[in-house]
C-alpha cells in the first residue's frame, strides 16, 4: 500500500483508540481504508486550496486596498487545468474504487458458505451443518466466508462495518458478500436499509473465533440435522422425488451432480446451475425447463419458505448420486424401485451430515 505495514498499524490503532475510526478486522479492510485515506487527503488538499484562494483573494483584493476591479474575461488555460486535473483525480478514484468493488464482491473459490435470511426484524444465519443463529454469526478467522443472503419480506441490508462489507438483502433473489476475518473478537452487524418499525433493532454480533474455537462451537451448537439433511426431508415430503428420481425414464432431470454444471434449456440457452438458478427453478419452473423435458413441473411459490428453499438448495448442492432418493421413493410395487448402485467414490452416504 505504499506505506510500511508497521506505520499503517500504528495509524489505524491510534485512530481507533480515539473512538473515531473502526477497527480493521478483515483482509479487505486495509484496502478500503487506503482508498479512504487517499480520498480524504485529496479532498483536504482541494479544500485547503480553494479556501486559501478565497482567503487570499479576499484579503488582497478587498475594497479598501483595491477599489477598482479589473474586468477579466477568463482564461482557457486555467479552465483546461482545473478541468483536467480534477478529472484525472476522479478517474484514478474510479479505477481504484472499481478494483476494490470487484475484490469485495467476487468471492474466492474456497469460500465457505453460510446462508443468511433477513426478515423483519431479525437476521437468521444458517450454517451448512445445521447450526442456526439469530442476530449472531460465528465464523472462523483466516478463512474466506461467503454469505448467501435473501430477504423474506422487504429490502434489508447486511453490514459489518469493521469488515468494511455490506450488501443489500433483497426479497426474491440471492445476494452474496464475502469476507475473511483477521482478528478474533465481536463486531457489529447492522441492518442498514430502512425496513420498518424495528429497523434499528435489527442488529447483531459477528463473533470471529480461532479455527479451533470455531470447530468447538460448531460441535456444541449442532441441534440435529444439517441443512442438507433437512433439505433431503423436504425433497421427499414435497414430492420432488416423484419426478426427479434419477431413473432414465423420469419426468424430471437428474439432479445428482447438477450443481455447478451447465445445462441447456428448451429454448437453446445454456445456464450455470448455481444457488439462484435452483431457487428460481423451484419457484418459476416454466422458465427453466431443461431441454428434452416437458414443462410440467408445478410451482412451489407460496408453499415453501426461504429457509426451506435454502435447505433444498443445500441438499441439491451436495447431491452426487440418486441412491438415497430412490431409497425414499414411495411406490406401490417394490420391483418398480430399482436402485442403482452408488456411484464411484461414495462408499459412505452420499449426503454429508
Amino acid at each position: 500500500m505504499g506505506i510500511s505495514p508497521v506505520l499503517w498499524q500504528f495509524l489505524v490503532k491510534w485512530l481507533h483508540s480515539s473512538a473515531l475510526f473502526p477497527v480493521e478486522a478483515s483482509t479487505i479492510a486495509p484496502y478500503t481504508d487506503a482508498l479512504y485515506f487517499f480520498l480524504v487527503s485529496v479532498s483536504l488538499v482541494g479544500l485547503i486550496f480553494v479556501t486559501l484562494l478565497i482567503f487570499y483573494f479576499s484579503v488582497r483584493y478587498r475594497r479598501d486596498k483595491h477599489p477598482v476591479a479589473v474586468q477579466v474575461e477568463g482564461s482557457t488555460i486555467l479552465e483546461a487545468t482545473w478541468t483536467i486535473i480534477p478529472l484525472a483525480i476522479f478517474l484514478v478514484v474510479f479505477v481504484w474504487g472499481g478494483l476494490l468493488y470487484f475484490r469485495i464482491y467476487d468471492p474466492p473459490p474456497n469460500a465457505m458458505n453460510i446462508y443468511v435470511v433477513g426478515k423483519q426484524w431479525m437476521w437468521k444465519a444458517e450454517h451448512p451443518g445445521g447450526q442456526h443463529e439469530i442476530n449472531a454469526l460465528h465464523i472462523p478467522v483466516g478463512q474466506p466466508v461467503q454469505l448467501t443472503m435473501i430477504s423474506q419480506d422487504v429490502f434489508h441490508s447486511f453490514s459489518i462495518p469493521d469488515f468494511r462489507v455490506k450488501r443489500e438483502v433483497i426479497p426474491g433473489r440471492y445476494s452474496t458478500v464475502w469476507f475473511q476475518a483477521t482478528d478474533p473478537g465481536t463486531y457489529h452487524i447492522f441492518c442498514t436499509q430502512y425496513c420498518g418499525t424495528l429497523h434499528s433493532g435489527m442488529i447483531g454480533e459477528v463473533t470471529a473465533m480461532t479455527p479451533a474455537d470455531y470447530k468447538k462451537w460448531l460441535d456444541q451448537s449442532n441441534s440435529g440435522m444439517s441443512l442438507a439433511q433437512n433439505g433431503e426431508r423436504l425433497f421427499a415430503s414435497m414430492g420432488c422425488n416423484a419426478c426427479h428420481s434419477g431413473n432414465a425414464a423420469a419426468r424430471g432431470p437428474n439432479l445428482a451432480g447438477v450443481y455447478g454444471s451447465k445445462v441447456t434449456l428448451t429454448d437453446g440457452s445454456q445456464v450455470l446451475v448455481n444457488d439462484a438458478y435452483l431457487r428460481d427453478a423451484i419457484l418459476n419452473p416454466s422458465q427453466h425447463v431443461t431441454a428434452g423435458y416437458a414443462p410440467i413441473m408445478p410451482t412451489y411459490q407460496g408453499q415453501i419458505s426461504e429457509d426451506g428453499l435454502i435447505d433444498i438448495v443445500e441438499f441439491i448442492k451436495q447431491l452426487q448420486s440418486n441412491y438415497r432418493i430412490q431409497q425414499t421413493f414411495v411406490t406401490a410395487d417394490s420391483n418398480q424401485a430399482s436402485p442403482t448402485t452408488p456411484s464411484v467414490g461414495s462408499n459412505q452416504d452420499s449426503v454429508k451430515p
Partner: protein
Amino acid sequence: MSSTATIVTLPDQATARLPKRNYLNNEDGLLSWLLTGDHKRIAMLYLISITFFFFIGGAFAGLIRLELLTPQPDLVAADTYNKFFTMHGIIMVFLFLVPSVPATIGNFLMPIMVGAKDLAFPKINLLSWYLYVLGGILLMAALVLGGVDTGWTFTTPLSTHYLNTHVITAALAIFVAGFSSIFTGLNFIVTIHRMRCPGMTWFRLPLFVWSNYAASLLMVLGTPVLAITLVLVLLERVFGIGVFDPTKGGDPLLFQHLFWFYSHPAVYIMILPGMGVISETISTFSRKRVFGYTAVAFSSVAIALFGFFVWAHHMFIMGISNYSALVFSLLTMLVAVPSAIKIFNWAFTLQKGSITFETPMLYSFGFMGLFTIGGVTGVFLGSLGMDIHLTETYFIVAHFHFVMVGGMLMAFLAGIHFWWPKMTGRMYPESLSKLAAVTTFIGFILTFMPQFILGYLGMPRRYHAYPPEYQVLNVLSTAGATVLGVGYMLPLLYLGWSLKYGAIAGDNPWQATGLEWQIQSPPLTENFIEIPIMDHEAYDYEWLEQKQKNEVTTVG
C-alpha cells in the same frame, strides 16, 4: 479580513419613499393576490408557503436530533421516529428544496432578467402555486391523520405491502406537487427561449438564468417519471397487483430504477438554481464579471445532461451487475467535473476584484466551502469500493446535508438577502444578518461534520437507537443543530421586521449590473414601462459606471 468598506448605496433616508406605484400596492384585496397573474406576487405567495413548510420540516429535524441525544429509543416510539424522518425528508425535498430558488427568486427575477413583462404563461404559473399548496395540504393531511413512515424514498415492497400508514395520501401529495414543478420548469424554458428582449442573446443572459434553465430542463424531463412511479406504487398498494412484488413475478428493483431516474436529477434541480444565485452574488460583491462566463454557463447545462445518466449510483450494492456499476461510477465521476469547474471559476472571479463582505457574500463564501466538502464526499460515494462501506450510513446523511443545506440553503439565503431590497424595497439590518450567517455556518459544521465520522464508524441511517459508543458524536451533532436552528430563526424575525422598519433601498443598493437593478424597488407590476433593449454584456461594470456618470435621476 475585516473591512469597513461596503458598496451599499442607499438614497437619503430623510426624503426617500417607496415608489408610489409598485406591484405590491397596485391592487388591493385578498383575491387580487389569490387570482394574480403577476409573477412577482406569485413569487411572494411561494415565499410565504415555502417558509411555512421549511419550519415544519425543520421542527421534525429538531425532534430527530433530540431523540438521537441518547443511544436508547427513549423519547418517542419507533414508529413515531420513523414518521419524523420520513416527514422531514419529504417536506424538505419536495416542498422546500425543489421549489426554493426557482419558485421564489426565479419566478420573481427571471422575467425581469430577460427583459420581459412576465413569464410566458402567467395562469399556469398561478396553477403551479395552487398545485404546490394542494400537495402541501395533502401531505399535512397525511401528517394529521397519523403520518407516513416509508422514508422519503418510498422503497417497495415496504411501502406497498408492509406498512399501514397513510402512504397513499403522501404519494398523492408528491404526485400533485410534482406537477407544480413541471409547470414551473415549462414556463421558464418557454420564457427564456421566446421572450428575451431585443439584444438579449443567450450569452448576454445572467448566469442565474442559465442555471435555472438547466434546472428547468431537469424538472420537465425528470419529474414525470416520478409521477408515473408514484402512480404504480399507488396502484400496487390499492389493488395489490404485484408489479414490484417478487412473489407475483414483479421486481422490486424496477421501482428503484424508476424512482432514482427522477430522484438523482432531482438533486441537480435542487442545487443548480442555488449555483445561479452564487454567480450573481460573487460577481456583484467583487464588482467583476464572472470568470469564464461561457464555462460556467455550459457547465450548468452539462450537469443537467450528465445528471440523467448516473441514477444507479444509488443502487451500487443492490444487486446490479458489477459491470453496470462500473458504467454508472464512471459517469458519476464525469458529472462531478462541471461542479468543480464552477467552484474554481467563482474563486477566480475574486481575483483582481474589489471585494466587500456584505451578508450575501458571507453566505456565498459559506456555500463555496461547504459545497466543496459536500461535493468531494460525493466522489467518495461514487467510488464503487468506497461506497460499499459508506452507503446507507451517516456518511450519506452528512454528504447530502452538506450539499443541500450547506450548499443550497445557504445559496437560497444569499439570494433572499441579495434580492430582498428589490422584492420589498427595504434593506434588512446588516449586522444582525451577518451574525445569522456566521451562526448558521458554525452550527452547520458542528451538526454535520461529526456525521461523516459516524458514517465511517458504520452507524446506519434512519436508526432510532444506536450503540452507546456513538453517543458523543451524536451529542455534538445535536448541539450543532440547536445553533443552526437559532441561525435560521433570525432571518425570519429580522426580514419580517424590515418590511416595516427597514431602510428604503432605492433601485440599486448594491450598485449591480443586471436589468433588475435598473428598475424601481419594488418593481412595477409590468416590470418595464417599455421593453428594454440590451446593448451590453452581462456583468458589464464599465457600462454601469458610464450609466451612473450620465444619469440624472432614476425613478423606474
